[in-house]
């Protein structure tokens, strides 16, 4: 397979490995594969990685490893692994209560696309969305794969507070707000799950390179799960799938 990449310094304490300049699952698979090889190799002096759509930024301590040593090491990985191996991925099942007070903009999305509420919900919850990366705020997933048939422009007047867990649409993107924040996305529903909870052993629910599937629930179920989440009794349901293979 074509495995184009470039290695560049990012200041004196980080290095970036950039793949082809486009958003695609194949390229993002290369990112995920390289990230796990780097982590498994436990290279002395490598502090952490930031995987994104089409690149990885690696932070390092120049007292422990030089730019050239790190660059050579990564080139070796790339040549050896080819990073086209099939790997296991998870689909996180995210329960969402659509419409009503949980999703005040469901009506906007439906009317902008000449659909009924139920049709929007079915389209939105019928796809496995790729988590290309996490960033922006702790635990915010950059998702790909939403159907153009429910694409809707942002609100003209952004809200000053959107409640954590809100699921929204902005243009051709869909996403979930991990923490209360201002924003202009069309809010179509809300999940009782916490994408970010600093008091949890693993504060961030999602991991890049995996997938999300929204599952429509009613208000009663929402309250039930919300209670379980509060009591730390809820485990996010996941499904195993295979990604990457060429």
């Amino acid at each position, binding site marked *: 397979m074509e495995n184009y990449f470039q290695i560049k310094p990012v200041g*004196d304490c980080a290095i970036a490995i950039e793949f082809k300049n486009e958003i695609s699952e194949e390229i993002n698979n290369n990112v995920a594969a390289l990230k796990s090889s780097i982590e498994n190799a436990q290279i002395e002096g490598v502090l952490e990685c930031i995987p994104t759509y089409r690149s990885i*930024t690696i932070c390092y301590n120049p007292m422990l490893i030089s730019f050239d040593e790190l660059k050579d090491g990564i080139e070796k990985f790339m040549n050896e692994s080819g990073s086209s191996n099939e790997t296991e991925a998870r689909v996180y099942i995210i329960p969402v209560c659509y419409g009503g007070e949980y999703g005040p903009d469901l009506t906007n999305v439906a009317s902008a696309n000449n659909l009924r509420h139920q049709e929007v919900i079915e389209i939105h919850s019928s796809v496995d969305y790729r988590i290309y990366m996490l960033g922006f705020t702790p635990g915010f997933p950059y998702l790909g794969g939403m159907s153009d048939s429910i694409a809707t422009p942002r609100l003209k007047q952004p809200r000053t507070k959107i409640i954590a867990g809100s699921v929204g649409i902005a243009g051709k993107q869909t996403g979930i707000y991990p923490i209360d924040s201002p924003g202009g996305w069309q809010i179509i529903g809300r999940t009782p799950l916490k994408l970010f909870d600093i008091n949890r052993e693993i*504060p961030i629910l999602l991991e890049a390179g995996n997938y999300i599937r929204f599952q429509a629930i009613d208000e009663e179920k929402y309250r039930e799960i919300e209670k379980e989440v509060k009591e730390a009794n809820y485990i996010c349901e996941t499904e195993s799938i295979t990604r990457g293979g060429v």
Partner: protein
Amino acid sequence: MTSVRVINPGMYTTIQDLGRTGYQQYGMPVSGSMDHFAHRVANLLVGNAQNEAVIEMTIMGGTYAFDEDLFIAITGADMNPKLNGKNQIGMWRSVSVKKGDRVTFGAAKKGCRSYLAVAGGFDLPLVLGSKSTYVRGRFGGLEGRILNKDDLIRVKEKKQDNQNLNGRFIPAGDIPEYEKAVNLRVLLGPQENYFTRKGIADFFSFPYKVSKEFDRMGYRLEGKKVEHESSADIISDGIVKGAVQIPGHGNPIIMLADCQTTGGYTKIAHVINTDLWKVAQLKTGDTIRFEAIDISDAHEIFRKREQKILEMIEGFSHKRLKDDKDFKLNINSQSFEVKINEVSSLK
């Protein structure tokens, strides 16, 4: 239980260690002190690990009361620290405070951020491996927020080796000068090819002023607009501190301790790690010039700084300050008050 009581928090005061490593892939900013050099030195002066949490004050410092005898050290910007409102407290040296003492800070004369370290360090929970406060995420430090009046910050109980801490100091020549105009050394890229040749030349030729918007997340600069070839946007990728972003408006933004982990603006250059303290000590109206160096020079500068820190530690075992002596001098019928720190050599 030893603790520090906040009598007056100052303008924007937080608890910071050297940052939260390992969670950027989940979108968690690193945080940590803005001026690592001043922070590390403050800890060394009171015998702490360099990563121990300290109090970071911004522009206007606060007032702190101590309920036990304790060694402290103050570094960074000179905010005119005083003991019980009277005597000047020496900076860049260990200072012994007594039970009931109050240390007061005013406005920064030069620079922007001051650091207060206490021997033993602060007894605060680690959140994802760090005591650093990330105010936007409401976690770390003291309850994830800036310090407030009447906060009690517990100090770790540790047997104080007074003999060992007494009189530790940093020689005058090693104390950084906080200038209002600085040169920042940068490595070009990684998106330098998004700019016109003129844009890059302008970036390195013109001075940039620190705007009114500067905080722990980043410093927005104003000056000659840096011209893009066509687009200012990239597919979002990783951001590390020191990144110099140029959005569509053409004015640079230097990303700092609390910066987000990812972003979609072009990055023309990165300030070298060893020069970030200079940015941390700038305020509105101060000016920056950028100067390109290559990575081997940057790493040489990095090594020299680490060497300098080792020499400072080494220095503690050779030389100590004796107690201050105050003199009155009369020269040509003008009188001067002179404080003399006698340095003693340890054998």
